[in-house]
């Protein structure tokens, strides 16, 4: 088995509170294993500790406890960072540089021959879709363009592992889609992508594996398929009819004029419901089976987190 791209053991980190009063426990023992292939989503609500974790991984801040290994190397060694590309949360760049200069500058911090670096700068800017904008100073870039130039600089050393902090936040739907496509493209090139997000839809669509963090603790982790499960959890039946059978009125979810939707939990119930409705002369509009969604898992985790705290 290949070595894990990132392995995190029992990571703890607390910050000074407001006005240095008290301490905020941002991470309360995070364990994480990012395999060295595919896309790993690091999901959690705002303030859960995603950014804190990523900053520790990239060596920007230091944990109180615990250890981080990147491809088997402790991250306290600066050489551990030679194989990662990092895109910080809503990235800030030197706005006096042009896009081209910026990517070139970050590339020059790696062991890349100058000529190759120049070529790579051009091709990367093209890859992220900034062709024609290279000579523009960054202060004239839009948020989406900044995100893309940030991706380009993260890719400049051709790293095996990409760490992206909220790569899609603050972008419009088209921007999100472009970044998503880019991430998928990079996956195809064989890169490992570890990205954080508080938006589930992003993760659901592209992740192979996710870890869910709530209040500084991983509450759920694993392959997306296992998390979501294979079997159907419930069915929604919509029908048009003047009267809802008495047996079904308990299961009504919505009802508007003569339109009604009910939710049932098993296949037998579906059959009985359909029979009842047919005898009632109602018109069946649709029967939709539902599997578990990431959102539900997420919400239930957050609930658990809350309960945790109350206990």
């Amino acid at each position, binding site marked *: 088995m290949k070595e894990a791209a990132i392995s995190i053991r029992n990571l703890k980190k607390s*910050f000074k509170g407001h006005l240095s009063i008290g301490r905020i426990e941002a991470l309360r023992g995070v364990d994480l294993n990012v395999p060295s292939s595919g896309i790993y989503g690091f999901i959690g609500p705002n303030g859960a500790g995603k950014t804190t974790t990523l*900053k520790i991984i*990239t*060596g*920007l*801040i*230091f944990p109180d406890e615990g250890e981080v290994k990147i491809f088997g190397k402790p991250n306290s060694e*600066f*050489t*551990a*960072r*030679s194989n*990662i590309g*990092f895109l*910080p949360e809503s*990235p*800030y*760049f*030197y706005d*006096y*540089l042009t896009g081209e*200069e910026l990517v070139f*500058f*970050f590339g*020059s*911090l*790696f*062991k890349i021959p100058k000529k190759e670096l120049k070529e790579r700068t051009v091709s990367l800017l093209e890859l992220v879709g900034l062709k024609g904008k290279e000579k523009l100073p960054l202060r004239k870039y839009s948020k989406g363009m900044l995100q893309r130039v*940030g991706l380009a*600089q993260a890719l400049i050393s051709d790293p095996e592992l990409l760490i992206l902090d909220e790569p899609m936040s603050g972008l419009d739907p088209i921007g999100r889609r472009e970044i998503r496509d880019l991430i998928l493209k990079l996956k195809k090139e064989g890169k490992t992508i570890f990205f954080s997000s508080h938006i589930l839809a992003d993760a659901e669509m592209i992740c192979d594996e996710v870890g869910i963090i709530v209040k500084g603790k991983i509450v759920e982790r694993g392959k997306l398929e296992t998390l979501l499960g294979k079997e159907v959890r419930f069915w929604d039946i919509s029908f048009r009819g003047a009267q809802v059978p008495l047996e079904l009125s308990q299961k009504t979810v919505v009802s508007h004029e003569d339109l009604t939707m009910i939710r049932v939990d098993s296949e037998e119930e579906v059959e009985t419901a359909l029979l009842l409705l047919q005898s009632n002369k109602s018109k069946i509009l649709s029967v939709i089976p539902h599997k578990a969604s990431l959102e539900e898992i997420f919400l239930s985790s957050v609930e658990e987190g809350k309960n945790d705290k109350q206990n």
Partner: protein
Amino acid sequence: MTNKIDWLFFIKQITSISKNTYKESIRSKIFYILMAFAVLILGFAVILSFLTIGSQKRIILDLGLAGISFFSVMTSIFVGIGLIYVEIEKKTIYNVLSKPMPRSLFIIGRYFGMMAVLGTNLLAMLLILTVLLAIFKGFTLMVFYAGFFIYMELAVITAIAIFFSSVASPVLSAICTLAFYLIGHTSSTFPEILVPLLHNQFEKKVAIALFHLLPDLSMLNVCNLITYEIPIAQGFTIRAIIYTFSYVLVLLVAACLIFRKRDLV
């Protein structure tokens, strides 16, 4: 990957950071504003020189060098205090420090970049001064000798500024660096002014110890010798250079040590 330290690669990284720092200054407005001020001061020196009875050259030389020195120092302080802090504040540092590079190189690179900027700045002003002096028949290359020592002073001041920049906010850094500048220029008067005021033998010893320990920037100021073309003492130059380097090194090492452990939040 070997564990051997690749010095050449380090130098390349430092150069990259320095170049970028240089670009930053050259493309910022404050650089040109301070330059304009310095040129203004030189013009002012020329205007004042018309008021004198006697040699105009002397007034231009004295006031010109003092003005250049003062404005270079101000540039050094007010740009220097933001050198590290602003990068943290603006979060631009995240991108740089997530690269495979020891953090100390960032400080060193910023320092050298700043020194390159100050060097350019100083050279330009000295050239203007030389031209002005030549117009008033006082052309002397000693101006550049004085300039060299102004640069030495800037090296110390910038190191102080960058040290504070990596630990404190700009306002605090500015106050501390200015305090060091003032002390550096007045500590030479300790034996003459401060010590006679003290009655206690112990206090006197402390004052003398401080006098030797604090950066003595006025020692690096040879402007006063230039006016009368008094020859500089034998062996002064080399010792002054070593003195400066030692001080700069102390400050940079201290800055790196603190910065190495710092959370960049």
